[in-house]
């Protein structure tokens, strides 16, 4: 069956992860100790099939493992519970060889049956997983239910074969999502709907205590299959704490990492104090904040008008509103995302040019429209800046300041002519350019209720996106990224968005926290990679 070509491709696929797997934890790291992390909101759930907010994402990562994983602090894939994998020549069959002797927190050994059960569970409509759609490429997805996925087969206790219905270049990333975490059936059956409060996984930590509304304690999994990690004996998450108070407690030595970050009101003060600024780690984030222009609502159905709005916005000034904690964006993809188009300047700030474009579109006198915005700081202030910029070219934008759920509703229904995405901006689920397209710029997302609030739908670009995602061969990775770059440049031609800025991350830590900076701005684990950080005694 297997041809030489296929095995070469497999070799290539494996080459990078295997090399990357040699990630050496900090040689100075000492085991032991406990850290305290604070959050304002209580943790919603720790069920990997359900949890889908930035707060529980990294917690779930430390409690569970999937077949694939990322090298700490990077966006590079490495095998997780899979020891190795093979991709068939047509890109439709993935065969994963599992690690032997991996134990769940309940002491039982993990097998291929558990992998199948977990994928069946997350795709079963009864589970109500928000991530079910990511597994759409697996054969039998459309019939998924109590019968399970026909595309996932157990070959032997340590081998699982996954058949896809179409090639999917992002499939290994999908297998690294929390939604693909391996869970033990007996623990899920026993806890029922409370599995999110009684999680059992194979991860570096296990849940030791959860007092609703107060705190969670993670305890080191002494049987963890990755040798040497984690370093910490325990992690205490204290919830219900105002970020400003968390900062005061950090300054008092009671908190190690404020999970919600440095509050905007205190940012200048912290960064102005060398002692405190030295403990702040800055890094990129796979995030873009944008304004959507509803292409089905006049006058935004005219591309000139959309381009004019793009030229009217002073992005530099908007980044100043958030203390310069972002860089102005030129395109939908953030700079740290593969496929980002280097050297593309985007639409430069040019109010005069924008006025000319409006005049060309027959709107020399401007027009009136609505700008929807989520009502939490700093978003209303950003909306005001946008409003002023638009007023300068004769557009009168009325700000609709609403709760998040109401903005999302208006966006999905297509009743909002303009939306500032702040607070709901797109943060990538996985580090691949395709993740910024389908739901927010593709035709599928433009359906009523979708997240494509511009209602932008370009069949040709959609076809290109499909083509790119079928290029599963790692040898064609560069070509694939080029294709994605073309897709986003095509989007910019049509200008359904004003990309405004890419947020930077600023993680503050206590003096005793150790480990390289990359662990504190890990693109996948926010705020920190719990498995690899350590404390000085």
């Amino acid at each position, binding site marked *: 069956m297997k041809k030489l070509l296929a095995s070469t491709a497999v070799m290539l696929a494996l080459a990078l992860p295997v090399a990357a797997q040699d990630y050496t934890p900090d040689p100075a790291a000492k085991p032991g100790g406990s850290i305290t992390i604070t959050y304002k909101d209580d943790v919603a759930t720790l069920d990997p099939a359900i949890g889908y907010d930035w707060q529980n994402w990294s917690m779930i990562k430390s409690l569970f493992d999937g077949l694939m994983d990322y090298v700490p602090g990077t966006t590079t894939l490495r095998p997780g519970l899979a020891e190795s994998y093979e991709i068939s020549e047509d890109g439709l069959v993935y065969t994963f060889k599992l690690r032997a002797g991996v134990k769940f927190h309940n002491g039982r050994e993990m097998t291929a049956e558990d992998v199948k059960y977990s994928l069946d569970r997350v795709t079963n409509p009864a589970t109500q997983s928000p991530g079910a759609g990511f597994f759409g490429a697996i054969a039998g997805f459309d019939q998924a239910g109590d019968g399970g996925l026909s595309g996932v087969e157990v070959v032997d206790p340590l081998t699982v074969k996954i058949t896809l219905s179409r090639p999917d270049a992002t499939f290994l990333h999908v297998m690294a999502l929390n939604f693909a975490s391996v869970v033990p059936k007996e623990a899920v059956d026993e806890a029922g709907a409370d599995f999110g409060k009684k999680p059992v996984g194979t991860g570096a930590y296990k849940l030791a205590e959860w007092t*609703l*509304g107060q705190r969670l304690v993670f305890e080191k999994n002494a049987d963890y299959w990755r040798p040497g990690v984690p370093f910490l004996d325990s992690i205490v998450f204290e919830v219900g704490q105002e970020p400003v108070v968390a900062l005061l*407690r950090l300054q008092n030595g009671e908190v190690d990492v404020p999970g919600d970050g440095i509050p905007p009101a205190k940012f200048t003060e912290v960064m102005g104090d060398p002692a405190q600024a030295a403990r702040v780690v800055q890094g990129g984030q796979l995030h873009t904040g944008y304004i959507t222009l509803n292409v089905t609502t006049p006058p935004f159905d005219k591309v000139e008008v959309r381009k004019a709005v793009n030229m009217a916005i002073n992005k530099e000034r908007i980044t100043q509103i958030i203390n310069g904690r972002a860089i102005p964006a030129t395109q939908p993809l953030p700079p740290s995302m593969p496929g980002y188009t280097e050297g593309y300047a985007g639409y430069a700030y040019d109010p005069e040019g924008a006025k000319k474009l409006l005049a060309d579109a027959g709107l020399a006198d401007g027009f009136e429209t609505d700008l929807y915005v989520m009502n939490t700081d700093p978003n209303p202030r950003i909306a005001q800046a946008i409003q002023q910029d638009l007023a300068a070219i004769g557009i009168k934008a009325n700000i609709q300041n609403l709760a998040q*759920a109401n903005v999302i509703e208006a966006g999905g229904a297509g009743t909002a002519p303009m939306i500032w995405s702040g607070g709901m901006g797109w943060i990538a689920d996985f580090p691949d350019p395709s993740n910024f397209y389908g739901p927010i710029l593709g035709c599928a997302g433009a359906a009523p209720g979708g*997240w494509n609030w511009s209602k932008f739908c370009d069949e040709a670009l959609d076809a290109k996106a499909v083509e790119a995602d079928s290029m599963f061969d790692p040898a064609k990775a560069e070509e694939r990224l080029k294709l994605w770059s073309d897709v986003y440049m095509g989007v910019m031609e049509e200008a359904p968005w004003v990309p405004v800025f890419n947020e930077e991350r600023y993680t503050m830590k206590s003096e005793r926290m150790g480990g390289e900076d990359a662990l504190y701005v890990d693109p996948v684990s926010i705020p920190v990679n719990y498995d690899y950080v350590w404390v000085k005694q």
Partner: protein
Amino acid sequence: MAAYLIRRLIQSALILLGVSFITFFLLYVLPADPVRQIAGRAATAETVENIREQLGLDKPFVVQYARYMGALLQGDMGRSYLQKTQVAELILSRLPATLLLMVGAIFCELVLGLTMGIIAALWRGRALDQTLMVTSFVTVSAPQFVVSLLLLYVFAVKLGWFPIGGYGTFAHLVLPAVTLGILGSGWYSRMMRSSMIDVLRADYIRTARAKGLTRARIVLRHALPNAILPVIAMIGIDIGIFMGGIVVVESVFGWPGIGQLAWQAIQRVDIPIIMGVTLVSAFAIVLGNLLADLIAPFIDPRIKLR
């Protein structure tokens, strides 16, 4: 008395039914879709519809309301849409903290408010009275966030007398309770002052004075018990307010009360939690008022419950 009690209990049940209906209706017409919050941004249209169906949110309003009330009458408040946890468990886990803070806060409000009110009434029209009344006006209009943070900063961070937020010991309770006491004392001091002034004009006070009783005895034995009646009714209302949650103070002091739960649920359109918290606080208001009315005759024998 018994007839009165039965009538009041029926009234209370009707009020709660009304509250449940209005809240449920408002959440139903709200232009925000709870299913979208559950399904998340990556969900396909099929996932969204599937979840809607499973939660019964595709059914007409009347059916949804009837189902909710049916379950509620069997003691089932449902599960949170997003956390999947039993709403009763979520509320119960936060109830002790809420009750504790409520008791502490009302105690501080009364100590501060009644003292200020009595002093102001006795020195009515003088500089002291005016100072106290301006103070009470300032405290009731002061922003909660600023006052909480100020007290926290001075007494916990700078002086280190109390822990910087948290829950568990008496020391943790002091600052949030005092904060709420200061913020709410103005209502009590104003009410106490006007009530006290009325009472001090009464004939029996003149009689007491004529008998040659000491001023302290007149105020504490004769005037105070009569002047305090409206204050008791106010405590009943206060209980309801505290049970509905004190979002800001709870969040600054990291106090695990119902307010934070409600606030998060509102942000995420988590209807079962919003309904649960609303009903629990409505129940507390109704109960608080009922108790205040029932206690009144014991303090003032002139009041008869009919």
